[in-house]
């Protein structure tokens, strides 16, 4: 199997799982969701299955059953830790798997995002990524008091204008962060005792970014991270975020609801204007795998649905065996997808099954690796490991 053509697989970590009732399963440890040991174990499980990366969900508001606002439910997991810090906590205890925390672009200072992800790249020795996410909710805006959210429904013109601004700012934020990552050239640090120069000042650059909402002079305080440019990812459901991903990201997570949808989306996304490396397109799938005790994935979903609020998903939900899921992944690969990001319905059940059942099945079919073939996340994703610096004059 050539490593260029293998499937890439990631897992999206979200608390006890993507099903609202996941925390009630026997394997779940809902009282450990805020402990480091829980997260370390999950990422180590994913690494044992040779998965390429994990993403860690985050938001500047509590989880909610409503799209734009908070709720007052008490029967689902509420509360979460900062995703970038979870990734940093896990980094020294793992060695190959990519770590892609979500960090929002609408409120967080781009300067802090750039140094935070760059530092994760240092502490993980080249395994950092960033899922750039807009904060589109009313409650998130109220936690900062800086923007006024129009409220209402997504079809309202004011809401659409607001969302348009969020994506314009997200585009600015990614550009500013990427410039900051490049603001030190790789060989800026010279440590020349004879001339008493630690740096070659000509290789440390201002970024002079002027955006719609902010401007940043730079340079960064953090030297260029090991990957040069850590991996930038985005989740996208529609034309506007597709354009954001094509213009700003290395990876995009899309949400096809069926095979036809999957074909339509990849055609739309790959046709967008883009320079440089092709955008790596990953399909998001919620997965509930058959249990060893005979309960099928679909039966598990039905049982979980009956416990409270049923799962409402923005993307395809696959219930079945590891072989069923492998079939679907091969179909996606045939359509041109780089791979998939799997969202475990129940983290503590489906993540081990992905690692222990699905990946051997994919390996038997010759579409997945049997060892980590690169030391960086860029390398695992087939992106060039040496990225030219936009400020280098060579």
């Amino acid at each position: 199997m050539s490593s260029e053509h293998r499937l890439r697989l990631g897992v999206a970590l979200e608390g006890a799982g993507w099903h609202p009732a996941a925390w009630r399963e026997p394997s779940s440890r809902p009282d450990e969701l805020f402990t480091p040991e829980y997260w370390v174990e999950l990422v180590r499980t994913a690494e044992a299955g040779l998965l390429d990366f994990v993403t860690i969900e985050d938001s500047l508001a509590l989880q909610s059953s409503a799209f734009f606002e908070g709720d007052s439910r008490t029967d689902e997991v509420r509360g979460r830790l900062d995703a970038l810090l979870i990734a940093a906590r896990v980094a020294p205890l793992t060695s190959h798997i990519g770590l892609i925390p979500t960090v929002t672009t609408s409120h967080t200072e781009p300067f802090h995002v750039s140094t935070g992800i760059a530092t994760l790249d240092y502490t993980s020795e080249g395994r950092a990524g960033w899922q750039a996410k807009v904060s589109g909710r009313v409650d998130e805006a109220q936690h900062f008091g800086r923007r006024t959210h129009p409220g209402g429904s997504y079809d309202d013109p004011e809401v659409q204008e607001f969302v348009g601004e969020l994506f314009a700012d997200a585009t600015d934020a990614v550009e500013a962060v990427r410039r900051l990552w490049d603001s030190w050239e790789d060989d800026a640090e010279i440590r020349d005792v004879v001339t008493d120069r630690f740096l070659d000042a000509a290789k440390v650059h201002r970024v002079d970014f002027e955006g719609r909402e902010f401007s940043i002079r730079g340079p960064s305080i953090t030297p260029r991270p090991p990957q040069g440019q850590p991996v930038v990812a985005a989740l996208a459901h529609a034309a506007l975020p597709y354009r954001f991903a094509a213009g700003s990201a290395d990876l995009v997570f899309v949400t096809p609801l069926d095979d036809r949808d999957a074909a339509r989306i990849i055609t739309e996304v790959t046709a967008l204007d883009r320079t440089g490396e092709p955008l790596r397109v990953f399909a998001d799938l919620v997965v509930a795998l058959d249990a060893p005790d005979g309960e099928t994935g679909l039966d598990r979903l039905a049982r979980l649905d009956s416990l409270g609020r049923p799962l409402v998903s923005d993307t395809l939900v696959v219930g079945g065996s590891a072989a069923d899921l492998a079939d679907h992944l091969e179909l996606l690969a045939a359509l041109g997808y780089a791979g998939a990001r799997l969202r475990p319905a129940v983290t503590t059940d489906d993540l081990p099954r992905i690692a222990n059942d699905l990946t051997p099945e994919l390996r038997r079919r010759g579409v997945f690796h049997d060892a980590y073939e690169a030391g960086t996340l860029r390398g695992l994703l087939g992106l060039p490991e040496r990225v030219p610096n936009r400020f280098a004059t060579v």
Partner: protein
Amino acid sequence: MTKQIILAAYVGGVNEHTLWEHPEAGSQIAFSTFKHVAQTAERGRFDYFFLAEGLALRARDGVIFDHDIAGRPDTLAVLASLAAVTSHIGLVGTLNATFNEPYELARQLASLDHLSGGRAGWNVVTSFDAYTGANFRRGGFLPYAERYERAEETVATVRELWDSWNEDAVAADKATGQFLADPSAGAFAHHGRQFDIEGRFTVPRSPQGRPIVVQAGVSPAGRDFAAANSDAIFSPYSRLAEAKDFYADIKQRARNAGRNPDDVKILPGTSFVLGDTQAEAEEKARHVKEQQLTDRTIQVIFEQVWNRDLSDYDPDGPLPDVEPDTTAPDFIQGRALIHGDRHATVAKWRALAEERGYTLRELAHEISGSADYVGTPTRVADQLDAFIQEDGADGVVLGSHLVPSGLDEFVDRVVPLLQERGSLRTEYEGTTLRENLGLPLPDRDGALVSR
């Protein structure tokens, strides 16, 4: 009873005190550097590891300094990674109250507290300089008077957010299906002059209840605020006479604010040089100082106060014959100006140089001070212990001119002596920073619960 010395290890990393020219100097940015210092400090039973922050590279006349060590990590991300490779030592970092929003600061620090099992601390600083502000959405535009108001309101708001979850708000009862015991867990509303925010906080109450808050406070208002609000104060006084005055003053202000004075720990930053004999240690200290005060560093020290280009002045010659320029924009940027009035400072230095016949270099050596603890391990242990027992402070924050291995010899040679005297623990008392500092666990109403 013997007072227990609180020890913290400080990695400056990016300043003129760190000798990158030293043959044993390591990386200022590799994770292995921070890991080495934190693990060494933990081996020496230190209370906490401390990481400073600077949000803009230093510059001279618009050009980045090339002679000092530079390049540092994001404070929070490094501390979270260090939590994975240490088990007891506190993890304290500087985070700026001007260039961060309370909601984010509160969730990051509370997250770090969960991820470290209760070892997080926050050194609160403010900044008003437009040079640093140019890297952020706002802050550079904050009027001088407002930065303290913003800092105080930031700390207060962050505490409100930390207090927004009950200890038992997470029921996680699978049988009944109740995850939250309280549908309003995390609810908060803060309507102040600086922040008008409300909603719900995302992080359940962390192991320490509230992470430790460290502040520096020298002005009377700053002292009152720090004495009333902080768990520890980073003090500028490391010489016994002035340190004792500061110590007594802060403890009294804490009493006046209705606090137990033992609940405010006072810690000056300090440095050391060890030798097998006193003469060897003093010779080493002299050499370190010479290495630190390069011609470029001397020039920058004076250019910052004169606020003009002094490159034509010989460091081995007399002081510049010009007056400081108080109208020009800052000639040196991103380096804290510790001298207030430029004219008064220059006049004071001129008088000193005239009296003693100093050149610029000699004056630089005089004003930049020297390592506080220079001597054999026994002598350093004696002096440090005396400084604490005589109420110069509750402990010290130790830095070294050599990164990352500079702390090793202190831990190997001085720590055992302090332990023999009974002034330093041989095992940690607890697993949280609060427990090890002997600080009470706060309850949500602000009253402190004694242990």
